[in-house]
């Protein structure tokens, strides 16, 4: 029987839960990647150990293709694992997680190919690999070195599974929309059944109908809000508004409303917010 999309999520949750991870739920603010969730961005700061796994819906407005392209989406899912400090056997743990999904190491060509990661908006970078499964990139593997412009110690490792890629691989599908989400009580439900209509709508919004003027205003409002909240040492809501700035910037980018010079200026503005949030968090880190 084919493993469904939701089975894949459940299997990964169980696997990492069994290895001591807190399993959390998605964070409810739009963001470009699981890294941007406060469960990663803030928790990798400071010295408190932290082991977490969660699904994160991720939005990249410029990647939308009106559902015409079988591999590109402006909204997709990541499965994110963060282990702090990074365990020595993390590669084996990861390979074990693939095996829990029925991807046996004997059957495939698994490669760790250099891919260093940098997020200019978050002032974060790390080194690591993309994992190739018979040539398909299914996971991003990063040892975080800096976050919010601050050096990290201990070092966290982040393992990010591209759930759609993984599902297409496991289910042997050539289009993301054909992924079986679930053999439900009333028949087969595919990824396309659930997400194709909204994918197309969002493309029209991202590329054509998003109001540039209002987005610019929204950016400025969110930036002001973030700054004010930091002044009150309210890190969590402040960081929400930093994320809103980031997503608004991505929308402006998709609308083609940002020139190269403006682009750098926007990135710097967001980075400044992220750095302030990181510093404010470190002033009062959450202890467990």
């Amino acid at each position, binding site marked *: 029987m084919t493993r469904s999309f939701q089975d894949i999520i459940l299997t990964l949750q169980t696997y990492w839960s069994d290895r001591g991870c807190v399993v959390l739920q998605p964070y409810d603010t739009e963001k470009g990647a699981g890294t941007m969730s406060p469960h990663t961005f803030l928790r990798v700061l400071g010295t408190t150990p932290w082991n977490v796994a969660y699904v994160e819906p991720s939005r990249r407005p410029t990647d939308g293709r009106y559902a015409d392209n079988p591999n590109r989406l402006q909204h997709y899912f990541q499965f994110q694992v963060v282990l702090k400090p990074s365990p*020595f056997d993390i590669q084996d743990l990861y390979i074990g997680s693939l095996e829990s999904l029925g991807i046996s190491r*004997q059957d495939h060509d698994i490669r760790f190919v250099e891919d260093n990661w940098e997020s200019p908006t978050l002032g974060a970078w790390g080194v690591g690999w993309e994992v190739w499964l018979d040539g398909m990139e299914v996971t991003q593997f990063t040892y975080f070195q800096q976050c919010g412009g601050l050096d990290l110690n*201990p070092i966290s490792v982040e393992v990010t599974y591209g759930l759609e890629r993984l599902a297409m691989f496991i289910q042997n599908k050539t289009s993301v929309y054909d992924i079986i989400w679930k053999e439900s009580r009333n028949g087969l439900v595919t990824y396309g059944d659930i997400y194709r209509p909204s994918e197309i709508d969002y493309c029209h919004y991202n590329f054509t109908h998003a109001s540039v003027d209002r987005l610019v205003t929204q950016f400025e409002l969110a930036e002001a809000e973030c700054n004010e909240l930091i002044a009150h040492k309210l890190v969590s809501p402040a960081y929400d508004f930093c994320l809103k700035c980031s997503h608004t910037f991505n929308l402006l980018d998709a609308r083609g409303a940002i020139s190269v010079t403006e682009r750098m200026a926007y990135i710097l503005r967001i980075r400044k917010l992220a750095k302030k949030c990181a510093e404010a968090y470190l002033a009062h880190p959450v202890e467990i």
Partner: protein
Amino acid sequence: MTIYLLELGFEEIPARFIPGLIAELRSRWMDALNTAHIEYQDVEVVGTYRRIATLIHGMADESAQISHRIRGPIRSVAFTEANELTPAGAGFLRKNNVTDFVVEAEGDKHYIVSYTTIPSRPTVDILGSIATSVVSGISLPIAMKWGDGYGPFIRPVHWIVSLLGDRHVPVEFLGIRSGAMTRTHRFLGSYREATITSASDYVTILNDHYVNVLPAGRRDIIRNELDLNRIHYDVTLLEEVVFLTEWPVPIWGAIDSDHMTLPAPAVVECIQKNQKYFPAIIDGKLTDRYLIIADSVTPANEAIIKRGNHSVLRARLEDVKFFWNEDRNNSYDNWVKKLDAIVYQKGLGSVGDKVRRMMPLADRFAQWIGADRVDSVRAAQLSKGDLVSQMVQELPKLQGVMGGIYAQLSGESSAVSSAITHLYDSDIRIDQPVCAALALADRLDTVVSCFANGLIPTGSQDPWGVRRAALAVVRALHRLHIPMTLTDLVSMGFDGLGTGRDKQDLCISFMMDRARYIFETDGVGSDMIPVSAVVDSVISPHRSLVQMAHSASHLQSRISDPRLKLITETVIRVSRLGRSASGRFDPSRLDTNERAGLDPVIQWMAGTDIHTLDDFHVLTDVMPAYFESTLIMDPDLDIRSNRLSFLRDVSTKCELFADFEKLSPALGGAQN
């Protein structure tokens, strides 16, 4: 004589760093062994993405005993008259940590002398600390930390094997202690670890466990497959794949027929850059096959791996198809308009501005070259448009190549589209006039823009590739025999830019250095001296490359002609004296005899250009006798000044051909 093995095992190190690491480790080991006076036959460093191993062959069992003779002060300083050590003598012994001494004669003096000996030590006793210092000093092209702050290294280090023969030599590095246990291939075989019983069996034991640790061995496997199929391959890709594998196995894949209609350069780029496969380019033509070099192949999984890779490539090519379709629905002119929104360089406007500067430059070059002017200007206008195409944004290396394809599709002439195609070729295509006019315009603008903007290359810092661009410009002008001076060339570039004039002279001399390099390497003058004599002449910025090349090769051909020596001596004498001149030369103020004697030279100065050394005969006929008969430094200051000014003018005329001072070393020195 024993083999020493030091294997360092780690998480996957980026392939591009490994050749450098191997070379560095080898030289660090040789230095360390020489310093420790341990003899060896060879240091061999091998490895994969997961391990780097040093094998020191024929290692001596002990270090050589080393004796030093240390000479101290002379006897009268080191000893009192009573033959006791003075404080200076005692200090010498203390400083060198010795107690025994002798007095030895050197010539007619006697010195206090001490002999010290560094005793021989068993290699096994000192090897551990040598190994630790060798690996600790490896330079890190990229550094990371892991876990609780371990590191730094390129990737986390997991194990160390350190064996002298079959004997363990303890080494500790970044918290890892050595042993005899290595890791085998990550996925192949039944075992994950293996014991290295002896250093000499290392390669064989790993090979039994699916690790071909010798880069040359892996390279052969891949290259044989490529050669067997007559495939033209990218050498850089081959080197990368050699270090992306421990157990390379070739698998052939096939491109779907509907993707074979996509532009071949895009397909090739996708296959090579994204997937690290080898596209089957046979006799310059892309065929529908590609070679995957997989690392974990067994008879049972080969078909699965092949299918997986095929679907990945298929998805990538679907993306390319999407861009191709989107781009073809766009108009090239529309792209050109968008260039105004892309910054070229801060302070130098947009790419659109650069294009507008390139258009008149292309026109000027077209006139020099004899290229079609309309085509050249049109090519310049369109040349950067593909920057905003989706294909180039996705696959930046295809800039130019895609531009050419899209230009052709939108109905441009083949001269225009071909010029765009070859715009970024490392050598300017001089066989295609429009292509040359465009490439010259683009690169000249890049060079002057960077100079005007302060981005002048220094040392290894040249992010904009100004050196390469300048070299390409000068080389093309030279090969095309364009009779243009470097001053006019650079000035033309700055005219369009409208700023940075203060950098013009610097830019001209930068270009002149490229000319020097080209003359020396392009068969003009294999000897540096004739080239310097021409290039370093003060007049060279105002001479065309054609003239300079002519002078340099002429000098080269006459370098052993005795007349050249006479000419050189004469000119140097003239110019050294002429240096102190300040006034104007007035022939009417020479007395009649002197005037008559110098008249051939005065005529010669007013006459035509100097083309060959034969044009100097008048000078060697007249001047030596003139110097013989005339006191230049006449007590009458007016006469003296007029003579000096005359000599200066002669010298200036000579410099139109070459700087003769630079020639004298080739001729065994000139007399004053």
